[in-house]
């Protein structure tokens, strides 16, 4: 591995780290396209810098021109957003468009000046990930230290400014100051990124890794760390792919890696990941099917005082339409030792099943009673609702209902609510 490659990989990883870290503040403040705005807003600054350096492409003039334009655009953005019904994303768009159009007009004016140097001025500042210079790397490193240090020193104030603007204002914490401070830090990061890796990667680094953290945690601190991690990972892996094969442009490689991680996280991530959600829904559904089956079986047990229920009857009462599905549930419950087969066509509840069933029935009938007594529902209307709500009643809620209704014995249909004593009498384990 040559020195060039090593330095390139380090630069990309470090830039990913700091951008993934900062990006969280943008995503949370609905300013995800802040990088895009700065990237376009620097054009007039670049033109002015070029003009001031007597039409020579002098990097210092141009860099500071760009920085100046970025700060003006940022200040204007802060001024416009959230006032007079202009939302933050609209404010970004207005500044992006306006500044870029001004820059474009300046370029047109410069074209007339006849100085050969103006051509390609809008590309002048834009770097590429594969050609990050050593200066850029040192800028990135220094900036990373400054940013991480600043954020941690003022963490509380910045967090308050982002999430509790009104409260901090009222407490005299001056959130406006911290917000401008924060966006200035981010603007500086963007300018350095522009020079190092160009507009698109600068934007992508600020958005994608931070967006990915949404699927892992809601806490800002965790997101900051995760964002930095994902950013660094994307930078490293993307650079690595770029150095392994020919014709793999570095910036795009990094972006596609981070997008891939994003999609994976969206599917499998612990918080709101699609797969997790579906899994949760599926698990819930199975649980509800179990509980419904048992409650129906218990009904027959109650009626006949015999721990034996005909499958036909349970099927009819359960409301499950598909006999194949019913069959699958039955098999699952036998496997789970919740019911026992009593010959071909009837089942008995095991001890475990009896506990569950009685619990379910108790919740069902208490809820029905609650609806009738406390919410004035007519008794004919409560069964369907109770069938759904019974699955959601936790032990705490159950206790509340019992207390509110003063431990009743009979449900609105005259059926006995299995009381704790009853359950003990019946020999239901656990009671």
């Amino acid at each position, binding site marked *: 591995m040559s020195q060039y490659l090593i330095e390139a990989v380090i630069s990309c990883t470090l830039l990913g780290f700091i951008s993934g870290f900062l990006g969280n503040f943008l995503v949370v403040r609905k300013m995800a396209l802040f990088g895009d705005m700065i990237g376009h807003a620097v054009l007039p600054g670049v033109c002015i810098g070029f003009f001031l350096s007597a039409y020579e492409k002098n990097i210092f003039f141009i860099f500071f021109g760009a920085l100046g334009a970025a700060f003006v655009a940022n200040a204007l953005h802060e001024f416009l957003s959230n006032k007079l019904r202009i939302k933050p994303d609209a404010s970004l768009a207005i500044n992006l468009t306006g500044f870029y159009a001004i820059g474009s007009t300046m370029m047109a004016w410069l074209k007339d000046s006849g100085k*050969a140097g103006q051509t390609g001025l809008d590309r002048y500042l834009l*770097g590429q990930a*594969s050609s990050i210079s050593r200066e850029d790397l040192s800028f990135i490193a220094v900036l990373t230290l400054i940013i991480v240090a600043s954020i941690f020193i003022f963490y509380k104030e910045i967090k308050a400014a982002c999430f509790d603007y009104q409260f901090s204002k009222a407490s005299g914490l001056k959130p406006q100051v911290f917000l401008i401070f924060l966006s200035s830090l981010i603007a500086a990061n963007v300018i350095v990124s522009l020079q190092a890796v160009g507009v698109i990667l600068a934007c992508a680094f600020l958005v994608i890794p931070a967006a990915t953290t949404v699927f892992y945690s809601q806490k800002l601190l965790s997101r900051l760390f995760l964002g930095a991690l994902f950013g660094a990972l994307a930078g490293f892996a993307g650079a690595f792919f770029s150095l392994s094969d020919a014709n793999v442009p570095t910036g795009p490689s990094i972006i596609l890696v981070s997008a891939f991680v994003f999609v994976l996280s969206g599917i499998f991530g612990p918080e709101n990941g699609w797969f997790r959600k579906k899994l949760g829904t599926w698990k819930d559904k199975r649980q509800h099917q179990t509980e419904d089956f048992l409650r129906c079986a218990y009904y027959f047990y109650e009626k006949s005082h015999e721990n034996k229920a005909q499958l036909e009857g349970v099927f009819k009462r359960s409301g499950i339409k598909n006999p194949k599905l019913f069959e699958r549930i039955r098999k699952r419950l036998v496997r789970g030792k919740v019911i026992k087969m009593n010959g071909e066509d009837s089942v008995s509840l095991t001890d475990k099943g009896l506990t569950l069933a009685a619990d379910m029935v108790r919740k069902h009938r208490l809820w029905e009673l609650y609806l009738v007594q406390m919410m004035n529902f007519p008794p004919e209307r409560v069964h369907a609702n109770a069938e759904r709500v019974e699955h959601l009643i936790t032990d705490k809620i159950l206790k509340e209902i019992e207390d509110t209704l003063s431990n009743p014995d009979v449900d609105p249909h005259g059926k006995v609510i299995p009381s704790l004593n009853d359950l003990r009498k019946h020999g239901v384990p656990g009671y």
Partner: protein
Amino acid sequence: MFYRKLLTILTTLCLCQLSHSLTVTSTTNLIDDLVSTIGANDIKNESLMGDGVDPHLYRATARDLTKLRNADVIFYNGLHLEGKLAETLGRLAKRKDVYAVADALDTKDIINHSGAIDPHIWFDPSLWIKVAQGVAEKLSQKLPQHRDKFFQRFEKLKTEINNTASLGKASIKSIPKEKRLLITSHDAFHYFGRYFDIEVLAVQGLSTESEAGLRDIQNIIDTIKKRKVPAVFVESSVPRAAIERVEESSKAKIGGTLFSDALGGKNSSAGTYTGMLKHNIETIVKGLK
């Protein structure tokens, strides 16, 4: 009485012919340079892209429309160099004298990278001479009375270009084959490479959006080391970062700035075609020797 009137009319007509100047607008400054050399004072010439403007990065300004409207003849490069404008001019050709100078070339002259036509025809002096002849021909069709003058100037230009070209060819031949490798940012030199018998290698492609990969740049660095290539070259309108990295990481130095898509400023030595060609050749030879 009658004859005096006739004389007056005839004289006026002749005077009108003499004072009627042809306005020629070209798109690129390279074409404009040709037109002004061949047409000189017999025509009025304008160009849309001024000194040093890269056609890939051209932005239209209001007077460009005026220039196109006022023109009696419009010349553009063709081969999609001017992008959407070329398409518009192609359609305008139905209603106005609009010519793509590349039409003077044969299909076999044009470099085609599997569907993508390379428009940088001016880097091959033999092709540019053909283009110049086409321009002279078109101008002569519009102003037949100046045909001799146009073709005289064309012949002079042809000689000049051929001299520079043959000197250049010899010069470049003197570079040992191993080192005879032109490394630039932008992939604009294929015609140059073909004519002057020098290999070309670009860090990034033709498109302004394209980007190099780490492996691609490392490959170039390795090639430089292996073949002991002494220099790499930057271009006037393309960002230098990639070439600078190559320079940092290999033993090659930046040999100088080449003009790839535009001429230099009007007052510089590279303000004419032959001047630009000479500058490029000298820079390359000096760097690679």
